[in-house]
């Protein structure tokens, strides 16, 4: 579904992505993990077309994404830190994105209901806490029933209750055969969610493995421990 081939990106002198290749298919739930500053967010932003790689190619459903924008209709993106226009209210933001997406039917309003957004529609964005902002991001990402969900640190700012709601939602969507791409530091959270792991280090993909393979190789049943073992072995 998403085909990444040999992409590199420099910010000034800093090489953020070095010749990264990866392949992601529908039905998979992939965790993109790695230390801070390893290039996870840059890779995600490249897929979204927010960052333009210096070299390499990227395909979405066998079509290059460079110069294309319609493919983003099939992606729901939840940013690490959602930044929205200060003066707009939650209701306005949701309305606006609906207008831009131009889709009235087939809206997925599970999270809208579960997070009880209805009550806050008139609040201005700048008055919101980080957690609430994340809820809005999540609502927007899931709302349009996209084939691909890209979630950048989805549970980082959420309270445990909301995090659980979101997790269940992710599992539900995974069941529908969607491709889900998650970055997270909290490996323990991912255990019952993910099917594959991409581990990045210093702008490179250190490994890309299925979870059960990984567990078999390392003889561990927790992902976090398995990864720790691999890292120690190197």
């Amino acid at each position, binding site marked *: 579904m998403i085909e990444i081939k040999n992409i590199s990106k420099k910010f000034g002198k800093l090489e953020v992505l070095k010749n990264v290749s990866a392949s992601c298919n529908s039905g998979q739930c992939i965790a993109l993990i790695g230390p801070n500053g390893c290039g996870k967010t840059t890779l995600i932003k490249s897929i979204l077309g*927010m960052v333009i790689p210096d070299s390499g190619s990227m395909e979405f459903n066998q079509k290059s994404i460079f110069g294309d924008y319609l493919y983003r209709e099939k992606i729901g993106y939840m940013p690490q830190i959602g930044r929205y*226009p200060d003066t707009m209210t939650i209701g306005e933001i949701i309305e606006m994105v609906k207008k*831009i997406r131009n889709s009235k039917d087939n809206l997925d309003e599970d999270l809208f209901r579960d997070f009880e957004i209805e009550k806050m529609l008139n609040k201005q964005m700048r008055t919101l806490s980080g957690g609430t902002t994340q809820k809005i991001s999540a609502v927007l990402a899931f709302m349009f029933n996209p084939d691909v969900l890209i979630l950048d640190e989805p549970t980082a700012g959420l309270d445990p209750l909301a995090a659980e709601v979101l997790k269940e939602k992710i599992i539900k969507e995974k069941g529908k055969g969607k491709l889900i791409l998650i970055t997270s530091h909290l490996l323990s959270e991912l255990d019952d969610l993910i099917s594959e792991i991409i581990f990045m280090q210093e702008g490179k993909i250190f490994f890309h493995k299925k979870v059960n393979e990984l567990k078999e190789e390392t003889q561990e049943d927790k992902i976090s421990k398995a990864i720790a073992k691999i890292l120690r072995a190197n």
Partner: protein
Amino acid sequence: MNRIVKIILSDILKNKIVLVYTLILAVLSWSSFGMEDNTAKGMLTILNVILFTVPLVSILFATIYIYNSSEFIELLVSQPIKRSKIWISLFISLSLSLIISFLIGSGIPLLINAPDFNGIMMLIIGVLITAIFVSLAFFSAIFNRDKARGIGTSIVIWLFFALIFDGLILFLLFQFSDYPIEKPMIFVTSLSPIDLARIQMLLHLDASAMMGYTGALFKEYFGNGIGIAVSLLLLFIWVIIPFVLSLKKFKTKDL
């Protein structure tokens, strides 16, 4: 395009600064026509507004607005919208809102007090100057990541066209006063949108000003129908070029 323009436009028009700007233009224009007993003098006051206030407010407001909507732009970029569409929509809405302010603030008194060729010419030039300085704001905002630097660049751009450029021309005129430099100078002068607008308007308003050989040359180059068309075209190019450069940059910018 329409949806985004509508969204941004409604956001800008909520902004109090645009309202205040409209009000200031209205006060300046009405009072200049009210105080001066002849319309020509009122027109000259409005010309000064067009050459001074309009560029300054346009470039500053647009620059600040672009920086303040960086989140909004980021949000839009992750959505299925063409990048160029986002940038063009932003430009259209910003120019449109400032042009509407100008038309309400200065346009109405202008058309009531001078409903002739000069009045309409003045309106067209005011609209073009607004668009030019919004376009320059896009140019300065896209090439400076830092907000403070971007605003600084915008002020310098304004100062350059309002003041420094004329200083350079004066310097050149006196440096090369022994040579026949009128024709090259006319060319050089038309490189500044403010000067071009000023001279084009003066040719119509205040003919007593444009006298002597230089005045005659100017009439020859800019005073006739072709001249008017050419200078309007030049002003239009001034709208296009900075914006197109910024658009090119925006298309490949990392957010």
